[in-house]
């Protein structure tokens, strides 16, 4: 794990005007603009979480200690305040199940649940994840007890290279939390923030249907 950079304050930032506009206010403004234009529910959730939080005193610009609650465990980590939740998970906590694919909220590969809401972790700062419950792909299974959607993914071969899979699995969990028995249109809509390049979507639909105790879509028998 690379050491967090202790020296950012020397990189021109120390001379920056000391915040008449607080960093948090700035992010809140940006966050709400993003929420207005973004198409994914995940992006909106991230912006909402940020907007709901009270103004804290300015921290940084050097590395700071934060404590996150990830999969029910408290994790203390030293990061620069500008670090995303995704980078914090991957680079500093070595929890690499969440994937960096587009790094700008358009592919769903880094999906996590924040207080149960689907959130793309590349669009959320780690400091904004303090005080909320973060559930990552690693938290969906307990020992060999998998989430039913995980088992259903494997059964229906809803994965190929597997790189989009953790994000899709988390998105499916959020979908099933929202609609315990989703129909095909709901499935397609709720998963439209996730990109898969190998082309597994149709098997994902069947995995979701079966995980919610519904019949998968059956092909016609070829003659």
């Amino acid at each position, binding site marked *: 794990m690379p050491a967090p950079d202790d020296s950012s304050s020397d990189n021109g930032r120390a001379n920056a005007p000391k915040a008449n506009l607080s960093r948090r206010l700035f992010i809140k403004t940006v966050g709400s603009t993003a929420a207005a234009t973004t198409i994914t529910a995940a992006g909106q959730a991230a912006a909402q979480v940020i907007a709901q939080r009270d103004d804290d005193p300015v921290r940084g610009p050097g590395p700071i200690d934060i404590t996150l609650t990830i999969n029910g465990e408290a994790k203390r980590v030293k990061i620069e305040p500008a670090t995303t939740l995704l980078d914090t998970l991957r680079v500093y906590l070595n929890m690499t199940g969440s994937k960096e694919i587009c790094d700008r909220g358009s592919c769903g590969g880094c999906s996590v649940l924040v207080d149960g809401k689907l959130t793309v972790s590349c669009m959320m700062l780690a400091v904004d994840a303090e005080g909320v419950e973060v559930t990552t792909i690693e938290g969906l299974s307990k020992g060999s007890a998998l989430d039913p959607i995980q088992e259903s993914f494997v059964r229906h071969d809803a994965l190929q290279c597997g790189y989009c*899979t953790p994000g899709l699995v988390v998105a499916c969990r959020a979908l099933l939390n929202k609609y315990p028995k989703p129909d095909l249109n709901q499935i397609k809509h709720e998963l439209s923030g996730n*990109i898969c390049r190998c082309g597994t979507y149709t098997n994902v639909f069947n995995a979701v249907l079966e995980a919610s105790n519904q019949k998968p879509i059956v092909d016609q028998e070829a003659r």
Partner: protein
Amino acid sequence: MNIRFDDLPTSMPTTNRPQNLGSSMNDDASRLDGFTKVTGQAKYGRDQYLPNSLFVGFVRCPVGAAELEAHDDAPAKAVPGVVEVEISGKDGQYQGHSVGYVVAESPAALARGLRALTVKWKRGSVKTRIMDEKLETPDPNDATKDLLAAADHVLEAEYSTEVQTHASLETHGAVIDHKGDSATCYVSTQGTFAATDGLGEAIGLPRSKYEVICEYVGGGFGSKLNGAGKEGVTAAKVAAKYKRPVYCFVSREEDQVDTGNRPSSLVRVKIGFKNDGTVLGGQIRSWGGVGVGRGGGGIALPTGRYTLGKLQKDHTDVRLNAGAPRPFRAPGHPQAAFVEELMLDEMATIAGIDPLELRLKLETSQDRREMMQLGANLIGWTDRQKTGSQTSVLRRGFGMGTTAWGGGGSQAECEVVINRDGSIEARTGTQDIGQGQRSTMGIIPASVLGVPLKFVTVRIGHSTLPVGPGSGGSTTTPSTAPVMQLAAESARKQLLVAIANLNGGDASELDIKDGQVLRSGKPLMSWKDACAKIGGEQILGRGKSEDVKRGEGHSQGVQFVDLTVDSETGVVRVNRVVAYQACGKVIARKLAESQVIGGVIQGLSYALFESRVLDRNVGSMLNANLEMYKIAGSADMPHIEPVLWRKGQTGYRSLGEPPTIPTSGAIACAVFNAIGKPVRSLPITPDKVLAVLQGAKS
């Protein structure tokens, strides 16, 4: 978080694809690394964050053509955490062309270092489109002139396709863990052994002192066939210098501009045919937009799947100020199938023949002819209305396309080890890029040895394992599967001889089924008891490619598409796809179905959405991301029915590439059928549909 994957099932039957039950060696097997992947435990190269790592990022040309006039490294070097700034080139020939790199102690320091670097570029003029070239079509030769003169009709048309980027979700890169006198290299590659060879010089160690590990690859589609790549070689060079782990994975934007693509194409055809559909021949003139590449823009046209008479063919690759192509899932084939299939439908319409009838007449393969008849039945071809007859807002269209793949074999060696505790190891060095190599390499020995799949541990993706092929040309399975079968058969024979020697009798009376050793059909002992009697430590069965024959069978296929075009918005929605596909002997039904479905989805995405958009003035890519570079998503999905062809399929054959070839052509035909005018340019976006409809009105 300690998941015991042993406790999880390997046999998971499904019933939603009744057409394929009984088609494979193991219908119910799920992907052997499925649970590792769905739990996030699978470690890809890009997931290797090692203690004490350095991070490398490239300094790149920002536009289509620019010369590096001056650079000042001092501000970058002054950034705390920046270790090195190396500028070695100055001739930027395309956006993303690298001229140097920065090394830093953390990703944040690297980003600051790259930003602080002062570089002055002098912009040059750029060429970004095939049509920027002077496009000259030679006059038809005398033979062609005679053919065209003898024809009842001549179709003269121009077709084009755009650049498609691979957009593998794991970007290109490597992590090199240099320990001074040895190294471990985690490379995201389609060729574990090619990557190993490629690192040699940069890593500064003999080949015997370092290994490449490639357990999981987040997609490649041909773009990761370049050995260790620039990323791996640079990381190795830096790692050798500092004797530290070095992380070098590119960003999405860099990946979009500098890691290959399917080149654009422009095709002009002039083809003569008779009223009865007999094609006499004509002229095909094509161009491929290859960026700075030297070649690679060729189009496999004619495909050879139809009798099209005598064709005069000329092709030119056009160099542009953009990233070079790399092999992309069936290079040159989807472009060709698009042109050929749409051309056939246009000819059928002119001659007043049903396109299915025309294809049955011109088809060169009896198996594909049979697939056509069965597939037409399955898609409901009789519901197809005559092209141009619909006037409603929503118009339904049917189309079809064909595919074939030769495939071949490369060097492969496999080992099957039976341990005294009954566990089995299947070993071969080649990698799994998503096609299911880990699974097929386990299913074959389990099937040959007559034991549950659970007994087998598959070891792949290591350069220290027996040599295996690169994943190119859909040859991984055809190369390795027969060899793995040979290794398993050898191990089985050795075990049975050992049991016969201990228990008396002849090995030929012995058999193994469901983990039981049988003598003349009656249970003799369990698998475990039998293995405990192995003399020595283990049994080792070996196979090598020299000792196997290439499989019988073929990889032909036919696809049918049913779609709807909204004539007011121009939006095309595919309702259903039926995909008949042969691939030799099927090893794992579910994985084979996935390959076919994935091919169809990539073909659909190519047909309707994907297009690299370059700024014509400066040559930079305007959609070097995943939101404006459109890839088909869940909401765009039709119902896809893969049908695995069984007739005459006995050996192991190719499957990765063939199913992505016909989809775009079939979709183009179906759009033509729906709206009565052909959209001769991919992707078939709403603006093009509306433009064609407007033209039809005026």
